[in-house]
């Protein structure tokens, strides 16, 4: 006949609001308010009418909320690093001051659909309306506790950290109100068991109105003392963006033989985006910079793009106990973008103009096999390869400029599951990923350059042990070795000394980004009484990617952490519908990336009740 479903979910996430730790002088600047948390909530209701031989009507409303405060990685600057200010180009500044965001976000989705089957064809007509209201503020302090002397000393003079720069407090507020409407129609026709055709078409209109304000309060030294000067990067920002998307696809499923399945698909999309905005820049000038001036700004951007994506998928199961598959798709996009950077409409008709043709060629291939030898052994292998190209070629005032990026990524996954007995099960998985990227940029004497290398090895093991009906144990272990490398660590060049610049090793400006870690868990559970189960768990995580030695020329971001937790959980069946869960334990977290400032160890406990209707 039908159904009604409703639900509510809410969770609170806490954030430590940590900034960066600078190891040379153990610099650490905490937030004044460290009680950061964000509440995420969603509630939904869905009603469905499903009468025999009649269309199925569905209406669903969902409301998602995100409110609170959370940390941000837009860290501010500090000169309190123990480094001198007169050794250019080596900077004494490090971006280690924590920042945080105030969130107020609401997203509503209303969907209504009619589904019906007439003959061999199923029809679906769906309408979606979405409404988003966001008002977020990011709070950042740059150079806290610093102000330059008046008059400003020569840049070659060594000055104390508190006199190297001027404190800036900024609060950037961005508002966004979006409404969108989307209509989707689709059909699925089963001509016979070996021939199925699916089609779909959608049209979406999205309108966004945005607002913004980015005031900066700068501590400015004057002959009369320090004054606070308020400037603004985009005062009274208002504008809007529009998107129109027409998309459709056709999918043909065929089965030429009993064990061969072939699927041919084609997707097409036509997308138009434009955005305009105006704002005022409030800037300070003069010596000292306390004379304020407001200048208007105007901006414009427009992108048109069309893409076609054919897709081929083949599956073969003609060999006993073996499934083979292969697929490939090729996305081909052509487009045109025109924009101008923000300009003063009182003195100019445009800013920096870009007229570019844009293109994308995305090729994705995948082959794999699954061999189910018996219940004792299952082997699976999967190899995928991506070759993506993006290009932006200027045809307007910047004729001759081009940006072409090519990337190739290969991923191999091997999985083995063995069950030597009813009591034991082993699952082993190895994943290898290899990636490379080349960028052909704007500099004529540097055509194509290898801009990225990526390697990743992942080995996982899960062992299940069920020696008796009343007891089970599970061991999980994951070992990951991975890095991303760009041109810096591979340059191998030491800079020459000039009269005004000291020499330094450019390789120390930026090291490889290492993402190595080991984690795992041991879980044991058993029946305690007719109504009670007990579960003991130990979890472990260790990462050692830090390299504080590079701090003189860089900001060491590598993660160095050790976490473990031991918990004992009790599950008690109060009644057929009511289950009580209780867990207690001890947890330790040691974080050397933050110099131990966010390390903790503590007992923990929680209780939950689950009631099944």
């Amino acid at each position: 006949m039908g159904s009604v479903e409703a639900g509510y979910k809410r969770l609170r996430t806490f954030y430590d609001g940590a900034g960066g730790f600078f190891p040379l002088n153990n610099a650490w600047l905490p937030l004044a308010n460290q009680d950061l948390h964000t509440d995420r909530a969603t509630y939904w209701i869905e009603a469905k009418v499903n009468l025999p031989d009649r269309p199925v009507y569905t209406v669903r409303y969902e409301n998602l909320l995100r409110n609170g405060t959370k940390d941000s990685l837009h860290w501010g600057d500090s000169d309190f690093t123990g480094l001198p200010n007169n050794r250019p180009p080596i900077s004494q500044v490090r971006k280690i001051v924590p920042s945080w965001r105030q969130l107020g976000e609401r997203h509503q989705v209303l969907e209504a659909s009619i589904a019906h089957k007439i003959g061999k064809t199923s029809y679906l007509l769906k309408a979606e309306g979405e409404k988003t209201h966001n008002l977020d503020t990011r709070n950042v302090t740059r150079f806290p506790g610093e102000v330059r002397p008046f008059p400003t000393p020569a840049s070659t003079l060594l000055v104390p950290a508190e006199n190297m720069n001027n404190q800036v407090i900024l609060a950037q507020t961005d508002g966004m109100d979006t409404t969108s409407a989307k209509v989707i129609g689709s059909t699925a026709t089963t001509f016979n068991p070996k021939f199925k055709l699916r089609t779909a078409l959608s049209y979406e209109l999205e309108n966004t109105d945005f607002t913004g304000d980015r005031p900066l309060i700068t501590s400015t030294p004057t002959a009369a003392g320090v004054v606070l000067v308020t400037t603004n990067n985009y005062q009274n920002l208002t504008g809007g963006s529009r998107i129109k998307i027409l998309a459709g696809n056709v999918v043909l499923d065929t089965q030429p033989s009993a064990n061969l399945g072939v699927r041919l698909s084609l997707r097409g999309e036509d997308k138009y985006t434009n955005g305009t905005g105006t704002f005022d820049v409030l800037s300070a000038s003069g010596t000292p910079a306390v004379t304020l001036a407001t200048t208007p700004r105007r901006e414009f951007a427009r992108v048109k793009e069309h893409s076609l994506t054919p897709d081929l998928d083949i599956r073969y199961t003609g060999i006993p106990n073996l499934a083979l598959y292969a697929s490939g798709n090729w996305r081909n996009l052509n487009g045109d973008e025109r924009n101008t950077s923000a300009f003063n409409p009182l003195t100019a008709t445009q800013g920096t103009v870009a007229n570019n043709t844009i293109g994308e060629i995305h090729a994705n291939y995948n082959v794999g096999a699954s061999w189910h030898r018996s219940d004792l052994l299952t082997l699976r292998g999967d190899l995928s390869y991506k070759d993506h190209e993006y290009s932006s070629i200027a045809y307007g005032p910047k004729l001759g400029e081009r940006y072409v990026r090519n990337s190739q990524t290969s991923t191999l996954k091997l999985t083995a599951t063995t069950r030597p007995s009813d009591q034991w099960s082993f699952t082993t998985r190895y994943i290898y990923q290899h990636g490379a990227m080349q960028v052909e940029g704007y500099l004529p004497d540097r055509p194509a350059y290898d801009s990225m290398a990526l390697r990743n090895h992942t080995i996982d093991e899960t062992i299940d042990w069920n020696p008796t009906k009343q007891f089970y144990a599970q061991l999980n272990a994951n070992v990951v070795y991975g890095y991303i490398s760009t041109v810096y660590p591979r340059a191998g060049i030491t800079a020459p000394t000039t009269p005004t610049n000291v020499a330094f090793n450019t390789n120390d400006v930026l090291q490889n980004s290492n993402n190595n870690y080991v984690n795992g868990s041991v879980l044991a559970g058993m029946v305690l009484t007719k109504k009670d189960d007990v579960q003991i768990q130990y979890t472990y995580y260790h990462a050692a990617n830090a390299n504080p030695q590079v701090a003189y020329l860089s900001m060491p971001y590598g993660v160095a952490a050790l976490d473990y937790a031991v918990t004992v959980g009790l599950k008690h069946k109060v009644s057929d519908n009511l289950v009580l869960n209780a867990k207690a334990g001890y947890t330790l977290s040691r974080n050397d990336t933050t110099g131990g400032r966010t390390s903790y160890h503590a007992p923990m406990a929680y209780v939950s009740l689950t009631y099944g209707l």
Partner: protein
Amino acid sequence: MSLSHRWSKRLILGALSLWGLVFISCVVVGRTALAPPKIAGATFVGTKECIQCHSDQTEHFTTASHARIAIADAKVGATGCEACHGPASLHVKSGGGPNTIINPRRSPETCFQCHTDKRGQFSLPNSHPVMAGKVSCADCHNPHEGNAVPGSGAALADMSETCTKCHTAQKGPFVFEHAALREGCTVCHSPHGSVNAKMLVARDANLCLRCHLQAPDAGSSGQINANAILRTVENHNTRLMQGTCWSAGCHEAPHGSNASYHFRN
């Protein structure tokens, strides 16, 4: 008493206690422990039974990524619905009674049976709270129809829709769009988990330099390129020493900007 001696005593005491609990449990209680994701006392019935009530879920399963590993002459239960939902005999017998079938939305253990690497990623400090039961694998992946990775191939939906349903502030549209988002959010974020804050695939400027080896202002101070490294002046070397590209005062709007052509704010 030395530290190691004390720990040895504790370990022996703990092992004895555990053995005692197991012994008592085996002697006193005949009930089976529910090791996730298993169903005590249930047997496989085959997918045909599932279709009786769940045709809306099974109708297009042949198009699903997971159907690719299905074997033609598999024994009942080895593949199909029960491979993920567990043996369904009790569920069928009770007419769909509660707690008689595994719902992977409530526990990721079903998915972790094969995707062991995802268990490791979701257990990292920076991850979506799947292990805490607040987010489910099915919130982002549809195991019953089409590509498990949404928006890939010739799917109608856009790849980024999965992320922007919750992360609306990053969705835009912005006046100045960052072309990196054309590759999807996962080009910079590892959605299952990362050792890095905000689930970034790289915590430092390598994240941006992968694509921005060269910047469009030849000869100006905007260069980040091999040429700049050679000469070390008039380039971003000094700025890169200070922190990431998206630090305050630099390019603070990596998802797109409504005011700055260079994503400054």
